[in-house]
């Protein structure tokens, strides 16, 4: 998700060969709700949120840390593992 328009995101996806849909928060509502709106620059600061099936935030990466997906992938694995262990009788 970025604050870029849908056409800008489409071009971005084309250039990078991204096949999954990219979300456009052109009105800056979501970046404000998530508290990552950079008012000076007018965009959303880099951040990654892992949200579980119940809509609860389970992991947050902000700033340059969020460039590297390793920590959120680890958090995903922990979440999956928890699910696997809790569903085991």
């Amino acid at each position, binding site marked *: 998700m970025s604050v870029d328009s849908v056409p800008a995101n489409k071009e971005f996806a084309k250039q990078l060969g991204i096949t999954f849909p990219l979300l456009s928060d052109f009105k800056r509502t979501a970046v404000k709700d998530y508290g990552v709106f950079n008012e000076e620059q007018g965009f959303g600061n880099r951040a990654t949120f892992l949200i579980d099936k*119940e809509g609860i935030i389970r992991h947050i990466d902000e700033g340059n840390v969020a460039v590297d997906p390793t920590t959120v992938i680890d958090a995903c694995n922990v979440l999956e593992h928890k699910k696997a262990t809790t569903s085991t009788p």
Partner: protein
Amino acid sequence: MYTRLLMSLVLLAVLSVVALGQQTPPGKTHLKVGDAAPDFNLRATDGKAYKLSDFKGKKNVVLAIYVLAFTGG
């Protein structure tokens, strides 16, 4: 009398500093692990609109916010 007033002022000053210290810096999220994620309803590059609540009870979601598609940021 003056001592009590002075003590009150000192306490007020300390509380003010604590309150300032707890303010979230601009652009840094106020959300914490364990908080409910705010819902969103956004258009995507495939022409569809996606709501976070559409995934409730179905899938975990990774929401990655990136900076400006054309700046390489």
